[in-house]
């Protein structure tokens, strides 16, 4: 089954709709789905008060339904939170906490997403064709349990602290990234194809960060390890270019690996005297 959701109005208040989840829609009729509860500001509403719902039968019927949202839902939070299977497609912008703690399945956004997308994710895939906000894949405030698996692909830019506290999984950013990429990360891989603001890998203990563009600076608590001719991002994706390899963060006795492309970073050449 494919369920199409059309926002009935331009949302002004924050909407919290964790029921937009294939797992929850599964086995329900369109009327039942319409009666699911959501919050708009401090008022409780039904899903069909905010969205027009349409169901269509797919030729090859997948196990869990596919949910397609047509329109701007940047005020709608927690879409696909905790989802375990199925697929969500958002044809517009999506709000905060998209796919929070998701375990499996796929979310595709053909627009931008706001903060905390893929927060504390454990499995599955999130693909964003626009930009992502701050704290991509990072845990919410006060928690130190970051991403534990899965894959996030962003084709645009991301805000600060992408992949903070990450333990496992992979984040690929084909645009630029804000500061503190991989803050306190403990494992996993982050790839930033373009430029990166300062403090990459601050306090990282383990894991790999690869920056293909220019980095503002490398923290003084990182030490240079060598030069590499190529770097592997994941199975079947290798970047062929010279990279500096740093390890750190020394202040946390870390052995995280930070690869920084040599070409776009002539200001780091003074490290070569230690090689």
């Amino acid at each position, binding site marked *: 089954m494919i369920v199409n959701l059309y926002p009935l109005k331009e949302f*002004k*208040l*924050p909407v*919290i709709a964790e029921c937009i989840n294939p797992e929850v829609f599964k086995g329900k009729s369109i009327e039942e789905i319409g009666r699911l509860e959501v*919050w*708009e*500001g*401090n*008022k409780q509403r039904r899903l069909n008060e905010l969205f027009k719902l349409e169901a269509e039968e797919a030729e090859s019927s997948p196990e869990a339904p596919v949910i397609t949202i047509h329109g701007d839902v940047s*005020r709608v*939070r927690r879409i696909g939170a905790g989802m375990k299977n199925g697929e969500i497609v958002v044809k517009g912008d999506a709000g*905060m906490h998209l796919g929070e703690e998701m375990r499996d399945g796929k979310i595709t956004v053909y627009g931008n997403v706001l*903060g*905390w997308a893929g927060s504390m994710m454990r499995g599955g895939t999130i693909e964003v064709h626009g930009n992502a906000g*701050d*704290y991509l894949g990072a845990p*919410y*405030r*006060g928690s*130190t349990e970051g991403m534990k698996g899965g894959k996030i692909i962003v084709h645009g830019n991301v805000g600060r602290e992408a992949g903070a506290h990450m333990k496992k999984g992979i984040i690929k950013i084909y645009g630029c990234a804000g*500061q*503190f990429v991989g*803050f306190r990360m403990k494992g996993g891989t982050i790839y930033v194809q373009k430029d990166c603001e*300062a*403090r990459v890998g*601050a*306090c990282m203990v383990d894991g790999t960060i690869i920056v293909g563009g220019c980095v503002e*600076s490398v*923290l*003084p*608590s990182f*030490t*240079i390890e060598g030069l590499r001719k190529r770097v592997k991002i994941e199975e079947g994706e290798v970047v062929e270019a010279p990279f500096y390899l740093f390890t750190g*963060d*020394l*202040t946390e006795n870390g052995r995280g690996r930070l690869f920084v492309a040599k070409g776009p970073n002539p200001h780091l050449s*003074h*490290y070569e005297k*230690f090689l």
Partner: protein
Amino acid sequence: MPVVKAVSCPVCGSLCDDIELTIENGEVVKVKNGCAMCEAKFLSHRSEHRIRKPLIRKDGEFVETTLEEAIRRTAEILAEANYPVLYGWSNTSCEAISVGIELAEEVGGVIDNTAVVCHGPSLLSVQDMGIPSCTLGQIRHRADLIIYWGCDPWSAHPRHIERYTAFAEGRFEKSAWRGYMAKIRSLIGLKKIRSAAKRLVLKEPSEIEARLKPTFVPSIAREGRKLIVVDVRRTKTAEMADFFIQVEPGKDYELLQALRALVRDQELEVDHVAGVPVEYLEEVVDAMVSCDFGALFFGLGLTMGGAKLRNIDAALSLIRDLNMRTKFVIMPMRGHFNVTGANMVFTWQTGYPYAVDFSLGYPRYNPGETSVVDVLLRGESDAALVVASDPVSSFPRKAAEHLARNPLIYVGPHMDVTAQVADVVIPSAFVGIEAPGTAYRMDHVPIPLKKVVDPPEGVLPDEEILRRILSEVRKIKREKTKAEAA
């Protein structure tokens, strides 16, 4: 003339409690022991900017109204709102804040205090890392090394240095005041000699310069309390310091991480960090690890610059590392006199220190999402109550515009910018001058505030106003449920 002793000063987070006031005809006429900021507040509480009557906006103009009418209108706005914000709280008593939180829960709103624009990032990092701290009394009596990072107490907390740190006469540590005076005198003398020498012997100024240069005795080697200042510019406090580190703007994080590495005896592969030579940092680190009891105070320069909350993360980690080698504590320099109290009361009642969202009926906390500035920047709220604060003049323009566009209620003593754009204005008494209460000093010590004079006629304290609004909101809700049932 009656003199009231041991009054607490309701201005900054130092909450000095040794102020003496002379009262004449129900007004404060003389202030003893306070700094200039303290004096200004006590002497001007009856200024012409004072609001004396409740106001309601009708057809774009303010008209005077009764307190009952203003409270009824406030309660209606809040009870109807779908996502109201309740902001301010740092310049009022803990008792009033407590009622404010009840009100936020009742109307399903977002409640936030001024920490969101000052030490909010510090609180986030403290939750991540923990904080080794102590009371100011301990620092006064025992600390032999004081660090001020990104703050200028000489102008923002004028009596902080004299009462609690470098210039305080402690039981076990003596004041560094005399040393500082000697230093100033010698500097003035040096200047005089230099100008005289320039006038007399014009030939070899460079040689004279060399002779006049004081032989370098690292001040860290001398006895007594030491003062280190880290800031982006040479402030008045920096003038007094034994060591002054001028950090490149926005590079505090790099500097902190470098200091951490040095404290842990690790080698750095760079010569300069944040514009400071590593050799100099090594000297500073020597002073840090060789002290017996160090205290680091940090201000907005650290919390709001560059890496923001992660600066504090690094500062807390530095203190953790230092505590492996000596004793060190850390404390934020809180601005408003009861911002610490606001964080305390918020935490007692909701579990979180600021940015609490009650829209789902229970407290939720995620600064960035539930913090008032971000809510306003995204244009989500539809009504606001401001208590004892002036967000319209201090918030980013877009946030302030959104605040003014929606129904806005102001409770406070002054006709400030927020009051001028509000729809309902309710005057309140000055806590600590016209109303009693409790406030928390920056080291989390509760200090009682005194009532020394009566408020203007008909003007109530914040606590009482909020109680009346709360009961009116409850009444409206009851009426609504009854109407729906019928």
